C-alpha cells in the first residue's frame, strides 16, 4: 500500500489562511488502512481546523467528503456537486490522489493534508515500513524476496557494506540490514552461490531517473479516445 502521514495541523492551517470554505476529502483505500486519511481522520482534522479558526476569529467552514479511491476518475465524479460549494479542496489522499483531484477540478485549489511517504506495509501495530521504490526492473528473484533498492540505505547490489553489524544497518540501529537478511535467507534456502555472482551496474532508466514513467497496454487502450490525464 501507499503509506502517508498527516501533516502537522499548523502546516495545514497555513495553507488554508486565505480560504473561508474548504472541503476535506478522505480516501478509502491505502491511507485509510494506515490511519491517515479515513473518514475518521477527515472528521478529526475538520473539527481541529474549525476550532482553531474560531479561536483566531476567522471562522472556517469545513465540509467533509469521502471517496473510495482518489486515484480513480470514476470515484471522483460524485464529488463534483460538493466541490462547487467550496473555495478549496483539502485532500487526505496520497500525492496521487491530490493530483487526480486537481486534474478533475481544474477551477479549484487542491491542497495536500498528508505527506506521502512510501510503498510499504505494517510491520507491527502502529509501524509501517518501506518495501519498494518502483525501480521498474525488479531484482527480488536474485535477493531472496528482500529489496536492496528500498531497504539498503546505500542501494548496494553486491552484498553488505562494511558497516553491517549484528544484523542492523549502520545508518540506523533500529533498521535491519537488508543484506544481512538477504544473506541469511540465501543460507536458509541453500542459495548463497547465486550471491557470489557480480551484479552489474543497474540500468536506472526504468526508475525515476528516466523521467516520467508510463505503462502502456495497447491491447487495453481505447482507440483514438483521449485519456482524461492525457
Amino acid at each position, binding site marked *: 500500500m501507499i503509506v502517508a502521514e498527516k501533516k502537522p495541523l499548523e502546516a495545514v492551517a497555513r495553507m488554508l489562511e486565505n480560504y473561508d470554505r474548504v472541503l476535506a476529502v478522505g480516501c478509502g483505500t491505502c491511507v485509510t488502512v494506515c490511519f491517515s486519511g479515513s473518514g475518521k481522520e477527515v472528521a478529526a482534522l475538520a473539527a481541529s481546523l474549525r476550532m482553531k479558526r474560531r479561536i483566531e476569529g476567522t471562522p472556517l467552514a469545513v465540509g467533509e467528503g469521502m471517496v473510495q479511491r482518489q486515484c480513480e476518475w470514476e470515484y471522483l465524479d460524485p464529488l463534483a456537486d460538493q466541490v462547487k460549494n467550496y473555495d478549496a479542496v483539502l485532500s487526505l489522499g496520497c500525492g496521487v490522489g491530490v493530483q487526480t483531484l486537481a486534474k478533475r477540478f481544474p477551477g479549484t485549489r487542491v491542497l495536500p493534508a498528508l505527506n506521502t511517504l512510501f510503498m510499504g506495509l505494517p510491520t507491527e501495530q502502529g509501524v509501517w515500513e518501506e518495501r519498494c521504490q518502483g525501480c521498474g526492473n525488479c531484482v527480488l528473484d536474485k535477493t531472496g524476496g528482500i529489496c536492496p533498492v528500498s531497504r539498503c540505505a*546505500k*542501494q548496494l547490489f*553486491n552484498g553488505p557494506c*562494511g*558497516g553491517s*553489524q549484528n544484523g542492523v544497518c*549502520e545508518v540506523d540501529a533500529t533498521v535491519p540490514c537488508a543484506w544481512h537478511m538477504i544473506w541469511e535467507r540465501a543460507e536458509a534456502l541453500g542459495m548463497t*552461490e547465486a550471491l557470489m555472482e*557480480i551484479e552489474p*551496474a543497474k540500468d536506472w532508466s526504468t526508475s525515476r531517473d528516466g523521467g516520467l514513467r508510463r505503462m502502456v497496454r495497447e491491447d487495453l487502450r481505447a482507440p483514438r479516445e483521449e485519456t482524461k490525464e492525457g
Partner: protein
Amino acid sequence: MSLANAAAIPPETTPKSGGNLERVLSAGQFAVTAELGPPRGCDADAVRRKAQLLKGWVDAANVTDNQAAVVRMSSIATGLLMIAEGLEPIVQMTCRDRNRLAMQSDLLGAAALGVHNLLCLSGDHQSKGDHPGAKNVHDVDSIQLVAMVRGMRDEGHYQNGKDIPGGGPRLFIGAAENPFADPAAIRPYRLRKKVVAGADFIQTQLIYDVPRFRAFMKKVVDLGVHEKTAILAGVGPVKSPGMVRHLRQNVPGLAVPETIDVRLEDAVKGIDDKQARAQAWRNEGKRICVETIQQIREIEGVAGVHVMAIEWEEAVPDIVKAAGLRQQPRG
C-alpha cells in the same frame, strides 16, 4: 561453496598504472600506505605540511573523499597537491556523491593529471555527516565501480561499452574490506567478489583483534584470493582511552579487545600530570600499533600495511621506523 568465480579473476598485466604502489607490490616488497585527510577549507599549505610528514615513509597515501560525509577539499585536487610534494596519492572515490558520468569524467581527469591509484568505496551515509539533507547517489555500488574502472583501463571502454578515444585511465584499482563486519561468513567471499571485479589491492578496516583477522585471512588464503590481489592490513595507533571508546561506539564492526584498555591504563600508572598522561597514552598507542604490525606481517597473504593515523600524521614515521619497515625516508 564452489570456487567457480576464481577462474574469472582477471589475468595479470603489468604495469597497469606506472605508479609507485604498484611497483613496490609487484616487486614483492612489503608495502606501507598511510592516510591524508584533506582540509575542510581551501588551505593548500595544510595538505603540503601533512604530505611532508609522510613523504618517503610510505609508498603512497590515501586521500579521503568527503570522509564521514563531511565536505572537504576534493580528493583529486588534494592528490595533485600531494604529487607536487612528491607523495603518491591513492585517490578515494565514494559511490555516494557521484553518478557514473561524474565518476568517469573525474577519473579521466585524475589520470591525465598524474594520479595512479584509486580506492573505490561505498561511502559513509550522508545522515552521519555535515549535510544530512543531501541527496545520495549510489548509481553504482563499490564493486560495480571497481568493475567500471577495470573496464575503462583494460578494455578501454566506458561503462556503456563504448570505446574511450585514446584508451582508458591507467589506474591501480583498490577496494576496502572490513573483516569484522557482519555477516561474518560473507566477508571473504565479498572480498573475492571485489577482486574478481578487478581490485588490484585491498585495504582493510582497522585491525586491533589480530586473532580474528588471522582467522579471516585463513579463509581468504584458502580461497586463493591473496594471489590475485595485494592485501594491505589496516592499522592505527590509539591516542587515549577516549578514542578507544569512540572507535567501539561509532565505528561499526571494529573489534577493539579489552587488552588495549588495560595497556593504556597501565601506561599512565603513577602519572598525574595531564600532559604527561596524554603523552604516555600516545606512546603506548604507537607501541601497540607497532606490535600489531609485527604480528600481522607474519600472517600469510598480507602484502603490506595501511597505517591510519587520523590527524596524527607525525606518528606514522615513528611507527614505520619502530616496526622495522624502513629506517629513513626513501627518496
